[in-house]
């Protein structure tokens, strides 16, 4: 019903009608229509209800930059109806309404406004009881909070994330941006030009301009292969070193530009008067966009507020689109507006000088504009096109470091150029007229090119024209009856801001926080300047002194989906992964690794784990230890390097021997342990714990960046795999394999290492004992690990060899009293607290942490790690992390606990007070259920304290 004939409607394709629903009712628009334009074409002007007062709201800017047009889509809340295209069957609904959009029961709040002044919620809802807020008021307010609804069943979508590099990024394809991009590309730069709109041209596409201007720019642009154009793409922030997110639908281009030209244009400002929010009142540019982009007549009878030339152009456009223009109100008292005024006179349009809009009134329920008052006279109309001038789109410039100023003469915001390689062009730089914008674009390109060391081929920029007459600065006066909105998003009126100042919130940031001005979806686009003016007036300061609040990214709303993208979870697999799966292992993640937890049926976990433990104790087990950190240290100083890094002596360690190694940080706290196998005078093979190896490796390199010893550190964690063959029958299994290594007790004693070949696989074998049993740890190149595994399995078959998993391994080590770094230690554990004096060299002049543990020893030790053994019939077994108490004071905690099938009782490691740490002491432990239990302290190793089994 409001659709204009062709050629109006550059974006729509009238051959492709599209049906969709709004609030359950079916509407029809054309391909290319936005939700708002299609609805407007059908006479549906109310799109939403406001945040606080639930007033009807409609089209304001047609740029997707205000809260008025936010609607709900099935899986997306808070979607801008004036930017989002319609699609077949799209279900659109209003949000934040109690009942329906037409009949919102919460509209009553609008009448109660005087009871709810600015910041009212800070002064009430506190009683009558201390918890009334939590129990009563907050739930009530939470029901009214928010706008759209999240659908927790929304399906997962794959968002795309990619990278883009260019010499010059031009943001905005209006006349300034187009000229900048073309000039830069003609100068040989590699240029990306982006614009949020579906087409290039900016104001050339909806303003009163000669179509030839755009056609010419468009053809020049198309001839440039080094100019990449991204339409429908928002540059949504500026970050350090010209790093910019370009968002193109569901795709994020993480963009790096050597230089940036911001031609982001300006934001037309609404006027402030009573009922300035009624549907039917819109920015002049919004009316033009409706007409030219969508072929939608924005009203039947219009009044235009025209404080400058732009308003006159809007009036002319309206006349041409068949709208009856009842009056053009020009607040300027004298002077001619030049040719536009004459043209309007010629079309019989009345112009009233020194006039402004004093108030508006709506139809029933304020559902649409009915009339406006100009010079005390009410004029019937259904459209009011307003403009209170432009402010430069300051968000991106400010993020790049520009500072906002204010030119009182023109009533406009100004921007300084930032230090970063960023340039401005067009109305963002204050060049509001076409010739100025074109010249500005060329100038910015020349500046960017010269910064990049490229010459401008040809200066096509026209000379800068003299400034046109400035837009009249409309005064802001509070209406005694209010409803003169400064911030539509937050329903804030002039008096709200004035009252905030009266309360003492005089700084602009405090006004923002107290009133929430500028905190809504439009982030102050339409309110920042007016707010600054009101606060300046109320605090007797200048607008420049008051300033605007910080413009933080993003520029416009962006989905979490496009930011998150899609990221596969990092996963690392040992070379034996498929072998474990074939053996029906239950796999568990350990960091990025997946490891066998146990082998067998998930429903019989306890039995499987117990069987695995008993197999190791009584026969032989096989554990994939490939996730262990493996580092090779090579070079003449390798021994000296280890001496500095670890607490034990390694420089004098004989070739072929394996030593425990304990790493401290500078504070003297235990950070890692492992073993070091000296393979040659200049070569050590060192293990580190699975979780710590990345850090240990980095720390080794860091220390050596300072020490500069002649040593190379190679991280072999992935390159080598490890198999631990352990149990009383381990030797028999290995001796059954073809090998050049003598696994005999005398030839290969405990804590020694051998290189050789086992079953055709080159190996490094170490006799160490994490389980407390006779153990050989076989390390080999990872590609050969499956072959070695198969050979060991085959050789072990007659001996009942059982592969075992992580859980059995944890119990086995606990039975032996071996600690796990990170579980049995924390960030301040010293070797003394672990009873690891034996592992700390007293002779070495230096190792990392030495000075600190000596100092800490002098300061005194308060706790010690001990073993606790529970009676076989104990009812209460504390869990891990349960407290050890002295009286009621916590002195320590259980760090590891488990049921030992070997011992037939529960055992634990725990920190206890140092005075209670001798064997035979008893300590009190508080179980998770609050019960206290009294437990005897035992030696660290619950099993085989004399080490006969592992050294056999």
């Amino acid at each position, binding site marked *: 019903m409001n659709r204009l004939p062709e050629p109006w409607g550059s974006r729509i394709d009238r051959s492709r009608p599209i049906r969709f629903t709004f609030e359950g009712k079916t509407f029809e628009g054309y391909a290319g229509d936005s939700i708002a334009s299609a609805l407007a074409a059908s006479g549906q002007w109310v799109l939403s209800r406001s945040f606080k007062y639930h007033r009807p709201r409609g089209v304001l800017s047609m740029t997707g930059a205000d809260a008025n047009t936010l609607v709900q889509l099935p899986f997306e809340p808070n979607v801008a109806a004036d930017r989002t295209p319609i699609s077949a069957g799209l279900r659109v609904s209003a949000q934040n309404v109690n009942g329906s959009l037409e009949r919102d029961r919460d509209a009553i709040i609008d009448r109660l406004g005087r009871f709810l002044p600015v910041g009212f919620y800070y002064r009430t809802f506190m009683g009558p009881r201390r918890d009334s807020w939590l129990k009563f008021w907050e739930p009530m307010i939470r029901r009214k909070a928010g706008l759209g609804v999240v659908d927790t069943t929304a399906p997962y979508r794959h968002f795309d994330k990619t990278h883009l590099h260019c010499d010059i990024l031009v943001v905005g394809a209006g006349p300034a941006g187009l000229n900048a991009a073309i000039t830069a590309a003609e100068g040989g730069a590699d240029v990306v030009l982006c614009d949020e709109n579906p087409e290039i041209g900016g104001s050339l596409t909806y303003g009163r301009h000669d179509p030839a201007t755009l056609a010419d720019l468009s053809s020049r642009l198309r001839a440039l292969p080094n100019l990449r154009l991204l339409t429908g793409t928002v540059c949504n922030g500026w970050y*350090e070193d010209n790093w910019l997110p370009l968002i193109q639908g569901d795709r994020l281009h993480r963009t*790096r530009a050597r230089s940036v030209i911001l031609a982001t244009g300006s934001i037309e400002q609404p006027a402030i008067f009573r009922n300035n929010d009624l549907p039917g009142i819109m920015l002049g540019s919004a009316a033009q966009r409706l007409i030219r982009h969508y072929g939608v007549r924005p009203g039947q009878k219009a009044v235009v507020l025209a404080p400058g030339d732009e308003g006159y152009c809007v009036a002319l456009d309206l006349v041409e689109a068949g709208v009856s223009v009842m009056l053009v109100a020009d607040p300027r008292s004298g002077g001619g507006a030049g040719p536009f005024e004459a043209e309007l006179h010629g079309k019989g349009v009345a112009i009233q000088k020194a006039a402004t809009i004093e108030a508006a009134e709506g139809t029933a329920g304020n559902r649409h504009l009915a009339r406006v008052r100009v010079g005390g006279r009410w004029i019937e109309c259904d459209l009011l096109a307003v403009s209170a001038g432009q402010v430069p789109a300051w968000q991106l410039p400010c993020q790049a470091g520009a500072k906002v100023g204010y030119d009182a003469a023109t009533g406009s915001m100004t921007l300084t150029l930032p230090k970063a390689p960023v340039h401005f062009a067009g109305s963002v730089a204050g060049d509001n007229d076409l010739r100025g914008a074109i010249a500005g674009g060329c100038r910015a390109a020349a500046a960017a090119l010269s910064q990049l060391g490229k010459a401008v081929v040809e200066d096509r920029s026209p000379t800068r024209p003299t400034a046109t007459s400035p837009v009249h600065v409309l005064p802001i006066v509070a209406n005694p009856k209010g409803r003169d909105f400064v911030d539509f998003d937050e329903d804030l009126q002039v008096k709200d801001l004035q009252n905030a100042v009266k309360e003492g919130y005089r700084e602009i940031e405090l006004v923002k926080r107290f009133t929430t001005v500028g905190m809504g979806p439009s982030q102050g686009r339409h309110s920042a300047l007016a707010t600054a003016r009101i606060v300046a007036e109320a605090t007797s300061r200048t607008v420049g002194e008051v300033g605007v609040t910080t413009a933080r990214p993003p520029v416009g709303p962006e989905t979490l989906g496009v930011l998150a993208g899609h990221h596969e979870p990092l996963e690392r697999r040992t070379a034996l992964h498929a072998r474990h799966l074939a053996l029906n292992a239950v796999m568990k993640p350990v960091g990025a690794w997946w490891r066998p937890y146990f082998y067998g049926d998930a429903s019989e976990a306890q039995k499987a784990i117990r069987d695995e433990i008993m197999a190791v104790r009584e026969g032989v087990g096989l554990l994939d230890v490939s996730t262990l950190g493996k580092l090779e240290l090579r070079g003449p100083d390798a021994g000296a390097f280890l001496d500095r890094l670890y607490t034990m002596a390694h420089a004098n360690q004989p070739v072929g021997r394996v030593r425990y190694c304990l790493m401290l940080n500078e*504070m003297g706290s235990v950070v890692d342990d492992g073993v070091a196998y000296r393979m040659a005078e200049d070569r050590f093979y060192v293990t580190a714990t699975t979780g710590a190896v990345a850090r240990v490796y980095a720390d080794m390199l860091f220390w050596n960046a300072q020490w500069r010893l002649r040593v190379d550190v190679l991280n072999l964690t992935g390159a080598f795999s490890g198999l631990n063959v352990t149990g009383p029958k381990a030797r028999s299994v290995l001796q059954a394999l073809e090998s050049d290594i003598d696994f005999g007790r005398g030839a290969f004693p405990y804590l020694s290492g051998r290189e050789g070949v086992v079953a055709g696989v080159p190996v490094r074998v170490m006799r160490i004992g994490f389980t407390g049993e006779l153990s050989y740890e076989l390390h080999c190149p990872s590609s050969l690990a499956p072959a070695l595994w198969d050979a060991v399995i085959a050789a072990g078959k007659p001996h009942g060899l059982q592969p075992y998993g992580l859980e059995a391994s944890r119990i086995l080590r606990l039975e032996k009293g071996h600690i796990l770094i990170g579980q049995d230690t924390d960030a301040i554990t010293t070797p003394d607290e672990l009873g690891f004096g034996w592992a700390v060299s007293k002779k070495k002049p*230096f190792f990392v942490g030495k*000075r600190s543990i000596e*100092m800490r020893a002098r300061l005194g030790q308060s706790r010690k790690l001990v073993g606790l053994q529970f009676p076989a019939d104990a009812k209460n077994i504390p869990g891990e992390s349960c407290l050890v108490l002295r009286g009621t004071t916590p002195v320590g905690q259980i760090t590891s606990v488990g049921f030992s099938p070997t011992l037939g009782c529960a055992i634990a490691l725990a920190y206890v007070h140092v005075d209670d740490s001798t064997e035979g002491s008893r300590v009190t432990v508080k179980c998770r259920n609050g019960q206290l239990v009294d437990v005897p302290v035992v030696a660290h190793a619950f099993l085989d304290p004399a080490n006969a089994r592992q050294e056999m």
Partner: protein
Amino acid sequence: MKILTCPMNGPRNIDEFQSFGPVRAEPDPDRTADTDWSRHLFRAENRRGIVVEWWRHVPSNYFFLAERDLVTNEIIRTFDASERRAQS
């Protein structure tokens, strides 16, 4: 994303690097009093100004030094650790 120019790998996004903090004095542990030793352990350079700090380029495991302004985040220069020794 900030750019950090690695002396070995050239300009890269700063997420390829790991900060190892400001360069610290290296007191002789045997000749340092307890209070000075704890100061060495716990107090790091944090002035609002330019600091020299250690960085690691993670993919290549190369350690180097950078002069950076802790207020503006401007990186003044980056250089190999051997240059520091030459200077001092």
